[in-house]
């Protein structure tokens, strides 16, 4: 899935054919996630992992971004609990949210299926995927309504 890059003619943009099956788009990323596969962009120039994948690397600007499966295992990098939720998530509060550093180097934010008091920096977690709840579907945009939701489970 390598694409992009500055070719000899100076024509760098080769993403015109992006469609919703491409994991560098959100529908493509979430389709794979629904099947249990976490895909990341990996910059072929500097190695930066991009979650979710996207056409360009934020670290170096390269458009040579490969798409590769990422390990679902990681560690808590930082965490908190939401006591004052947006209206859509009021029934869930307080809930734990964390930034997780994944084993392949990318970092991803998500809910943690544990009480705040039971979590600490460095804890091992694993990304799991579930279907959206009825409430989540209600507040979803039309195009998001079938997207899965990822949750980090303590290991």
């Amino acid at each position: 899935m390598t694409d992009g890059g500055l070719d000899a003619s100076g024509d760098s943009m080769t993403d015109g054919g992006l469609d919703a099956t491409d994991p560098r788009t959100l529908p493509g990323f979430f389709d794979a996630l629904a099947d249990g596969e976490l895909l990341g962009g990996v910059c072929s120039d500097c190695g930066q992992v991009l979650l979710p994948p996207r056409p360009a690397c934020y670290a170096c600007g390269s458009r040579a971004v490969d798409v590769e499966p990422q390990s679902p295992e990681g560690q808590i990098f930082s965490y908190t609990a939401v006591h004052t939720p947006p209206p859509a998530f009021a029934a869930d509060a307080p809930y734990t949210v964390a930034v997780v550093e994944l084993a392949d180097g990318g970092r991803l934010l998500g809910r943690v299926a544990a009480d705040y008091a039971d979590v600490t920096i460095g804890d091992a977690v694993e990304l799991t995927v579930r279907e959206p709840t009825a409430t989540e579907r209600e507040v979803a945009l039309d195009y998001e309504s079938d997207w899965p939701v990822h949750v980090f489970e303590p290991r």
Partner: protein
Amino acid sequence: MPDPVIASVGASPLGRTDLPGRDLFSVALAEAFDDLPDPADIVEAVYVGNQSETYEHQIMQGTLLAEWAGLRHVPAERVEGCAAAGALALRHAVKDVRNGEHEAVLACGVEKMTSAGTSGATDALSAAFDRAIEQRSGITAPSQYALLGQRYLHETDATERDLAEIAVKNHANAARNPRAQFPKEIDVATVLESDPVAPPLKLYDCAPVGDGAAAVLVTTAEMAADLDQPQVRVAGSGASANNIAVAERDMTDIAGARIAAETAYDEAGIDAEAVDIAEVHDAFTVCEALLAEAAGFAPAGTGYQSYQPPAERADGWTDVQLSPSGGLKARGHPIGATGLLQALEAYEQLTGAAGDRAVEDAETALLLNEGGVADAVTVGHVLTTAEAP
């Protein structure tokens, strides 16, 4: 190139008010133009900092506020960048004057946050975060900053009590600021015992929801002199965007803020040591610590000492005074107006109009205004007295 200056400032009352946004703007504008010709006689363009149309179901704020100022057929637009919208509006005005495009530009900001209650404001602010991953995980503004705060406490010697002391210091400053939303002192126990919002952040670590508008007139130095107005030079302006998702950034080295500040310093021909006062984006107490480091005032890991007198801070700290207005925490944080309220504070400090809260001999100010969580976008400005070298 013309030298852009701030020639006048004004603000509405801050907090819970009975005025809609456009009327708050009228109040701010009336103060700014109290001793001046009518806006229609001098203003050539308008930029409006405004976070969200959800509060009043109103976009087209450029058109609306230009009209309410008596201006027609001038370029006028809303500038969006969540809480950095105000400083982005100021930056556009500064660039227009510096480029010779206009001689007088109105930078203003307005937010009517109380219209939808705390839960409405929480929802509107969450739109500043990445929709695909962050919003769908239920993230909020306090919880985003709590992720930074948790990491900061993990990596440094700072404690929750230190963060509380920052709130105490900013409330003490606000107690001397007649414009402040919360002009009252508080103690550390009040902060530490307040309700959890997103640990380690508690209610009193968080800037309040509130209404407000501010107006800043940017002109050439010549026009400000013709108008017989005290003037403050806009000696430098910088801006930087960073990743939308906080997870993909360095969460304790706020790189976008560092770049915005350094760009503004470079344009002004100064370094961080020269800054006497700084209005930084203390939307949450930990922000002041992080931004003190990003601005070059404090060595890495010591920014939390911002509440201490200069002589008691760690080696390597400058003598800067942070948030003399009371900051976002206690002066108030009507999102789109905040960057301009920072400019207003610096204008009053540098023109001898800061009353009881005046910082002695202040000649140079840094403003840092952030949008999204931390440095999703940051705008930095260096303001100096007309006499400063």
